């Protein structure tokens, strides 16, 4: 009973210098949510790309409903009802929602001689599709560029439905979402499951897997490890399957004695999303900054870091007033900023590890503006060693690294500038469990041993609760709450984050 | 921030529209450059020939010293086969295609001359210099040139002379000492007079006219216009100079500029004076398409074939013959004569095949003849 709808077997895929998938098999049943787990670089993405027809496997067979299929391009896969929602959203910011949904298969009006895109029908269908997802307040003519992340993703899902997909692949759909968006997403996923759509769900957040998935398949280093029913497995099982070893603790928080104030901001202003923010950060403490996406957390961080110079308010470092107009000045004052958007803000992906790690400290590695490559190499090798970055060496191009390792490179870049204050914006977004715990361990080491002050922004409550000594909560550009590690818990923080907002967001579909 | 931009924008626009120097009449451009003008005596063009003669006689009465250069210890190639290179302003336009044609004719007649034409594909002073330079390196017996800029081209030509290569210019001159002889279609003042005369004859002494020239920086046109100005201000002070517009050597632009003149001045425009063989037919075309043949006279330099449609249907009464073919033809003969030693500094004339004897004027210029005006009667005698 319950024959597999999609069946992959003996899949092998090679990339230059890498054997990405080794004889992998994979099954998806009709109407199930099937989680696909594995550390970055384990081969999940490659597998998805194969299922969705982007890559062709060297060997192995794919069969749908028993008969063999093979895809030469994404279109083929779409035609037989396999739709994919990619991690980096595949949308056209300059085009309207309706168009994005129907790009490539717009409803046409037939005039006998020629066909034309039927805009009216396209917009009506778009509204219907969104309706099916219980989204009634999204303007189908708005430019996607003007939507927030949650809405963009809904557009992606609607797009998938428009192909009336029987298999829907979701690659880390929640990576960029806020709690409330995640809730909506889950309800949509369940909705689809009831309609008999099979969903391949990829995520690093294990709790989501347990909340949502029926079965789970684990890959490691391009090999098939196993498939299990979610109900008869446990978090630690999965982790050990993924990592190949057991991870004692995801949040290895060490006790560290809190020093005196290193960073203090007083009524910092940069409307609309930063309105007289005031707080202190002490040496040797991790301050968690919680809040919904769009609540102004990142903006605040960027104001401090000088990307968006403050319109008013003071910043004190070691009780000295400082005036930060540009990131370079922030760096001089010993502030580091690990931004949320790694690929776009954190790294120059086309450059090597060496060049990236030294980017913030060029002065240090160069004698009067001439860069000393030897020094650079030493620096790079140190950070590779210290953060155990998995790479072929300092000369490897960052592009080629997995998400977790890329994140480590970003961190190492800022450690190289040995800062007093490190602002970490979503330090573990899209990072696999292994790397995640390593980064967390590193954070608490830095704090405990070097007395660093860390301001950590995160959308993951467990992370906030697990790592912070103190927790600040922002909402709509204002600081609305402060909790000590002791008094903080899921509920009071969540409510602080969302009270009132919830309703507003509901109606806004955001 | 955005406000300031908006404001600067508006202000800037206003500045652009109103604060730029306006009033074409006020600083009417008379091709002014530092050189002297010497207008001919007044009179209508039936006396043209005499006038021209007269002009020449003047030259002869106080004959000007030879002011050209000379090729230092050039090999004596008298009577032998010689290889010439012809470097016009640019290749790929009809005008210099015609000069090339003339040179080839001459070369065939002489039999012992080979001419190859090579020039930049844009009328660009630097490229022309480089082309000439590479031929100096390559080694030829003589260089024929039409300068994009009289001064800029001088150094490289001097180098040519120094390395024993004979240099003759045609159509567009260089500094005299940078070449031996310059073959001139007609004297600047002659052209200037002919133009004005023709215009006045058609539209009266108080006619008002606009000029379509190539560019303000092209020496020939500049000289002609200043000669026109000089002659007109002596003889017909009532002429009204409306405006001078640039049109490069471009057909479309010439046409549009002529249209602009017509539309801008309406009835106030009696004539269009076109300074290039491209501008003349296209201005005529513009006048014709506007159906104003009776009201606007088109005067200018042109090659007969281009003008036939307009002259034959009477839209244009006459035009001044510009004969690139003979120009190229003469240039080759002059070069041959130099090399054969039959034509040396001090001579007052040179034999040029079918063109007969050509006069020397202004020291080192060989004159093709007085400006020839063609009209409905004789236009069909020509075919180029």
């Amino acid at each position: 009973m319950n024959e597999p709808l999609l069946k992959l077997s003996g899949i092998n895929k090679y990339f230059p210098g890498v054997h990405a998938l080794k004889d992998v098999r994979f099954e998806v049943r009709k109407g199930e949510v099937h989680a696909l787990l594995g550390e970055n670089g384990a081969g999940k993405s490659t597998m998805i790309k194969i299922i969705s027809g982007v890559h062709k496997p060297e060997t192995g067979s794919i069969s749908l409903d028993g008969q063999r299929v093979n895809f030469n391009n994404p279109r083929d896969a779409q035609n037989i009802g396999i739709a994919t929602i990619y991690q980096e959203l595949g949308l056209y910011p300059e085009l309207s929602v309706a168009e994005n949904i129907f790009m490539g298969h717009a409803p046409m009006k037939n005039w006998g001689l020629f066909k034309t895109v039927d805009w009216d029908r396209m917009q009506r269908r778009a509204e219907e599709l969104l309706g099916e997802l219980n989204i009634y307040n999204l303007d189908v003519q708005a430019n996607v560029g003007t939507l927030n992340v949650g809405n963009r993703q809904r557009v992606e899902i609607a797009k998938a439905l428009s192909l009336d997909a029987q298999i829907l692949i979701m690659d880390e759909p929640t990576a960029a979402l806020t709690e409330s968006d995640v809730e909506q997403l889950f309800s949509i996923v369940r909705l689809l499951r009831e309609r008999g759509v099979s969903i391949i769900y990829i995520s690093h957040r294990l709790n989501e897997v347990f909340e949502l998935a029926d079965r789970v398949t684990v890959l490691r280093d391009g090999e098939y490890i196993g498939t299990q029913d979610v109900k008869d497995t446990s978090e630690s099982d999965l982790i050990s399957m993924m990592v190949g070893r057991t991870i004692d603790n995801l949040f290895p928080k060490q006790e560290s004695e809190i020093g005196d104030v290193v960073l203090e901001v007083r009524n910092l202003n940069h409307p609309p999303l930063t309105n007289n923010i005031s707080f202190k950060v002490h040496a040797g403490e991790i301050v968690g900054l919680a809040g919904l996406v769009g609540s102004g957390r990142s903006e605040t961080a960027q104001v401090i870091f000088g990307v968006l110079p403050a319109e008013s308010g003071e910043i004190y470092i070691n009780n000295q007033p400082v005036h930060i107009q540009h990131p370079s000045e922030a760096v001089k004052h010993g502030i580091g900023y690990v931004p949320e958007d790694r690929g776009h803000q954190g790294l120059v992906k086309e450059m090597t590890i060496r060049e990236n790690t030294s980017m913030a400290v060029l002065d240090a590695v160069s004698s009067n503006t001439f860069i000393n490559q030897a020094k650079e190499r030493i620096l790079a090798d140190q950070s590779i060693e210290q953060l155990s970055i998995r790479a072929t060496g300092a000369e490897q191009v960052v592009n080629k690294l997995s998400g977790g390792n890329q994140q480590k490179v970003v961190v190492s870049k800022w450690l190289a500038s040995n800062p007093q204050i490190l602002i970490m914006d979503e330090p573990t977004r899209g990072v696999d469990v292994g790397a995640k715990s390593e980064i967390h361990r590193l954070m608490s080491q830095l704090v405990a041993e070097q007395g660093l002050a860390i301001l950590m922004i995160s959308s993951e409550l467990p992370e906030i609760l697990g790592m912070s000594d103190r927790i600040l909560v922002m909402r709509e550009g204002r600081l609305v709450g402060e909790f000590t590690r002791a008094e903080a818990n899921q509920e009071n923080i969540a409510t602080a984050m969302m009270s009132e907002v919830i309703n507003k967001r509901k109606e806004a579909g955001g | 921030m955005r406000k300031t931009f908006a404001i600067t924008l508006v202000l800037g626009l206003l500045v652009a529209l109103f604060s730029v120097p306006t009033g074409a009449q006020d600083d009417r451009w008379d091709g002014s450059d530092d050189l002297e003008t010497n207008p001919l005596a007044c009179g209508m063009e039936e006396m043209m020939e005499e006038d021209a003669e007269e002009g020449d006689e003047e030259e002869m009465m106080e004959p000007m010293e030879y002011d050209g250069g000379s090729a230092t210890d050039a090999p004596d190639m008298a009577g032998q086969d010689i290889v010439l290179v012809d470097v016009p302003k640019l290749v790929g336009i009809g005008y210099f295609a015609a000069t090339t044609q003339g040179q080839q004719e001459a070369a065939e007649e002489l039999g012992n001359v080979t001419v190859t034409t090579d020039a930049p594909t844009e009328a660009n002073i630097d490229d022309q210099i480089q082309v000439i330079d590479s031929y100096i390196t390559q080694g030829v017996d003589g260089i024929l040139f039409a300068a994009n800029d009289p001064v800029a081209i001088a150094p490289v030509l001097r180098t040519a002379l120094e390395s024993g290569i004979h240099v003759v210019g045609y159509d567009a001159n260089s500094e005299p000492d940078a070449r031996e002889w310059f073959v001139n279609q007609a004297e600047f003042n002659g052209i200037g007079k002919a133009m004005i005369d023709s215009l006045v004859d058609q539209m009266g002494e108080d006619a008002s006219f606009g000029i379509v020239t190539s560019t303000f920086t092209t020496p020939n046109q500049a000289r002609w216009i200043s000669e026109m100005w000089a002659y007109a201000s002596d003889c017909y002070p009532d002429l009204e100079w409306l405006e001078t517009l640039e049109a490069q050597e471009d057909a479309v632009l010439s046409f549009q500029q002529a249209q602009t003149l017509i539309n801008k001045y309406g009835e106030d425009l009696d004539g269009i004076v076109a300074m290039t063989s491209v501008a003349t037919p296209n201005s005529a075309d513009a006048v014709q398409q506007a159906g104003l043949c009776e009201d606007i006279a088109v005067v200018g330099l042109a090659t007969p074939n281009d003008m036939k449609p307009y002259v034959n249907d009477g839209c244009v009464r006459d035009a001044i013959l510009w004969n690139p073919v003979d120009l190229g033809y003469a240039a080759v003969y002059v070069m041959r004569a130099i090399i054969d030693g039959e034509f040396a500094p001090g001579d007052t004339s040179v034999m040029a095949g079918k063109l007969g004897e050509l006069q020397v004027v202004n020291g080192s210029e060989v004159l093709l003849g007085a400006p020839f005006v063609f009209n409905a009667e004789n236009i069909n005698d020509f075919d180029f």
Partner: protein
Amino acid sequence: MIAKQKALPARPKPIHFLGIILAAALLSAYLFLPFANQPELGASTIAMITESKKANELGIFTNGLALIPFASLGIFLLGMWNVIMPKASRAISLMMSVSGLLVIAYFINFIKDYAEEEATYISQMGIGFWIILIVSILTILQILIPRGITEARYRITKLYGNQESIIVFGLLLLIFVIGVANPRFLQERNLSDILSGNAYIAVAALGMSMVIITGNIDISVGSLVGLLAVISGRLVVAGLPTPMAWLIPLIVGGLFGAFIGFLVAYLKIPSIVVTLGMLSIIKGILIIWTNGERVTGMPEDYFLSQFRPLGIPMPIIIMVVLTIIVALWMKYSRTGRAFYALGGNADAARLSGLSQKRLLMTVFILNGVFVGIASVMYSTQFNIIQATPPPGLELSVITASVVGGVSILGGTGTVVGSTLATLLLNFIRSAMIFINVSPFWLKAVQGLLILFTVLADLIRRRRQRL
């Protein structure tokens, strides 16, 4: 991020169509009604325009003109009403109001002159004719073309909806200012001369805009126009039937486009590099082949650009028709939309199964064809075809597209914009002469104005980003 109000339904409201109908009715009435009190002439405006200068007597046009203020008053009121009811495009409204005012201004201007018994009234009627023509076309386009319909948000939240309307605004402003400074500028003949004389640039700009929208560029346009023009001319002189001589350049252009497309799409050479090379290659071919000999002696029926059906110069008709067709095609055809997709987000385009290679080929071939059309319009306007590429054409074409609001990074812009921009740029060029800008400073002023147009667009984009 925070709640955004529900946007408006975009289906055109009857009110919009009222705009069209009014404008169209106006236009036709103006063009074709015989004028009652001139029985002996009884001719329509069209006839008058086409008549020679002599026939353009005062009386005829007073009637013709009399239509203008009423109509424009109507449009103006409609415009104002649109502004008040925030249900329609501010852009349209703005345009309507301004043009309405304009024409009224001219009516007054006319009455003044009439009293003073000076000037020929062809000029006044000319402006009426052209303004109404432009308004009508734009009213229709604004409603049918993407910017007009899909982006409801533009309409309600922005003062000027898009680059097109900025340019139209600038265009009308220019006409107004220059017209006041020198009414001669407004003669029907002058305006039509400017339009028809540069129509071929606009047509070339159509292709260019498409190429730029896909995120590429073609700087070999100039040379290609030159080559194709000569081909066309030589063919017809060689005795080929005229239609063939008009058609073949399109095909050859398409072939060149295909070649460029191949290099870009399959061999992955950046288009700017390819076309930089092709620029000189084609030019070289042209020179070696023709050696500069002009082409003459084409048969009478060859001169497409000189035809004047309905008294409207052929180039203008071609330009307007093609612009509308292409605009509609870019909006209503799959391929058209795919171009936007490709330019907007190439990866996404690939993932949603669009074939990048095929699209690139298509766009470059199309571009080639349009260059072909442009070259025919170019070669058929005079009795002589120069064997030289029109100087600096590629720059004016690219400038037109960019000024027209086509983002150089690809993904946005409309061909309507590029056509309007062509008009604007050339109106500026001629206008400067009419207000006696010193000939030496023409280029400088043009450059300045281009800069300002671009900045205007930029500021608009800034606004919209907020």
